[in-house]
């Protein structure tokens, strides 16, 4: 089944981030698996929080994306969003972050 989550870039760091609704309110995480997913009918709840965060200068350019889930967690449907979520699909010259090539097809 497909869901919608909200993503954006953190204003200070520029990093990819995802909107999460917690018990203490909304927050943003770079871990896609913490993102709050909604169906189409309830997406407006996320939209309102995302727009507030943009106005509050926490994030830049929020927008919804479609995800599915498997044993490893949430997976964006679109290839570009997979790369945003899991990082470049190549081994970086001196990067400790492991490449995402094992998470989606090259």
């Amino acid at each position: 089944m497909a869901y919608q989550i909200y993503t954006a870039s953190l204003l200070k760091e520029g990093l990819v981030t995802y909107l999460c609704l917690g018990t203490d309110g909304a927050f943003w995480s770079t871990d896609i698996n913490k993102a709050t997913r909604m169906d189409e009918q309830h997406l407006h709840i996320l939209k309102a929080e995302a727009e507030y965060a943009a106005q509050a200068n926490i994030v830049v350019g929020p927008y919804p994306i479609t995800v599915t889930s498997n044993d490893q967690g949430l997976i964006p449907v679109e290839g570009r969003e997979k790369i945003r979520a899991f990082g470049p699909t190549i081994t970086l010259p001196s990067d400790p972050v492991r490449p995402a090539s094992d998470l989606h097809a090259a």
Partner: protein
Amino acid sequence: MYQYSQADHQLLQERVAQFRGQVQRRLRGELSEDEFKQQRLRNGLYLQLHAYMLRVAVPYGLLSSNQMRTLAHIARKYDRGYGHFSTRQNIQYNWPKLEDVPQILDDLAAVEMHAIQTSGNCIRNTTSDPLAGVARDEVADPRPYCELIRQWSTFHPEFNFLPRKFKIAVSGAIHDRAAVAVHDIGLRLVKDASDELEFEVYVGGGLGRTPMIGKLIRASLHPHDMLTYLEAILRVYNRLGRRDNLYKARIKILVHETGEEKFRDLVEAEWQEIKASSLRLANEDIARIQSHFKDPDYELLSDFDHDFDSHLLTNPDFANWASKNVELHKKDGYRIVYLSLKSRNQPTGDVTADQMDAIADLADRYSLGAIRSTHRQNLVLSDVKLADLHHLWLELVKLDLATPNYNHLTDIISCPGMDYCALATARSIPIAQALTERFDSYDYINDLGDLSLNISGCINACGHHHVANIGILGVNKRGVEVYQLTLGGSAREDASIGKIIGPAFTSDEIVKAVADILKVYLDKREGPEEAFLAAYRRLGQAPFKEKLYG
């Protein structure tokens, strides 16, 4: 190289202070993202797929060892330990934080570097021949003219909000190593019939979704008139360039839609108004800048070195490298060395901080402290003694900078593609890496000879695929990355735009498709001396198409 004056230093310091203020206001929310975006672009700062990306200017590709060490420091302290050399001779950092960028710019300013106008709809970094000042085929050193253009275009009050970005390249040699024909303005230094120096002026070249070769708008321009003529071209563009359609806003579209003759008339008419203005260069203006680019104190050396010849005979790896990555220098006893950033072990054009520091040390030890970047995403040490070549090569091998493939198949230009770029529609780096792994036989690469292969991850063509002998364009077809092949492009003095060969290939198919093309070339060439491009121009598309599609 050019040494900053007090005024240059002050300009940079004021610019950094201004941007620091803009960043602070953005972080406090006093500037919206829309308001801030144009400011950050004019300081070279993009917001890309994963993070901010900072593009640092390397004016006409020239760096000192000290500047390279600062670039290493920035990669180490503020980024993830590496940088990427682009197809416009600049360097890019992919992971800086917004709050750190003012300090990065401060660190750059301390070594006379900046990120001014490396983005935005303004005149960008002027690029040039990486062998300027040392090439045997040089007519005149283009660097002083590049520096004059840089000073004229920086913060030019009329040209900071052009219809679109604007790129200028200058070449001073018989062989074009600056891709002059595919720039918005390309200038070529030539000698007239009386052996006087003059410019040929080409306008309206470019790549992207509508690739075009520049038109020769003026065959003969006196160097004194360089800036006034550029001003006239930019004024016509600024006035008449399209602002209603982002995809038709480059000057190439204006030249094409206006017509070459009419466009020339418009520029000439504009030029008549200003050619005698204070912008006209005097001999003293040119001489003052040329004084920064005088020849170093070369030693009087023999062009023969017994040890070098001995190593060539006894060490086939060294000989292979020397045959491709080393060029003759204008001075006997010296050579030009290409540092290949195209190994199989990291993405094309990427350099780690440790490599940058080591390159700086090698430049000091072997090449008078200077390094050049090339639009093919490699580096150059321009003044290496013949006698030092073997020692240098040993050091480069340890640093993984000695891949012997310059101007050969695996000397691939690749844009960052969808692994980094927000505009990309497909990945390019994995394709470049797959091709490098597939074609890892130096005997095979040597046999293929001079051959360019460039890859772009979208129609914006930052990988220059249009002007490669074999070009690859990644596109997205219903969510799947596919790769279109073009053949017959050239970025040199015989510039041409490659032609699409047929339907695109998947990422699984593209490597074999390239192998098939190369097989056709090897089968049908008129001997090893006929290069790929010449063979393609003789044969046409038919035999390649037949092999690929049946």
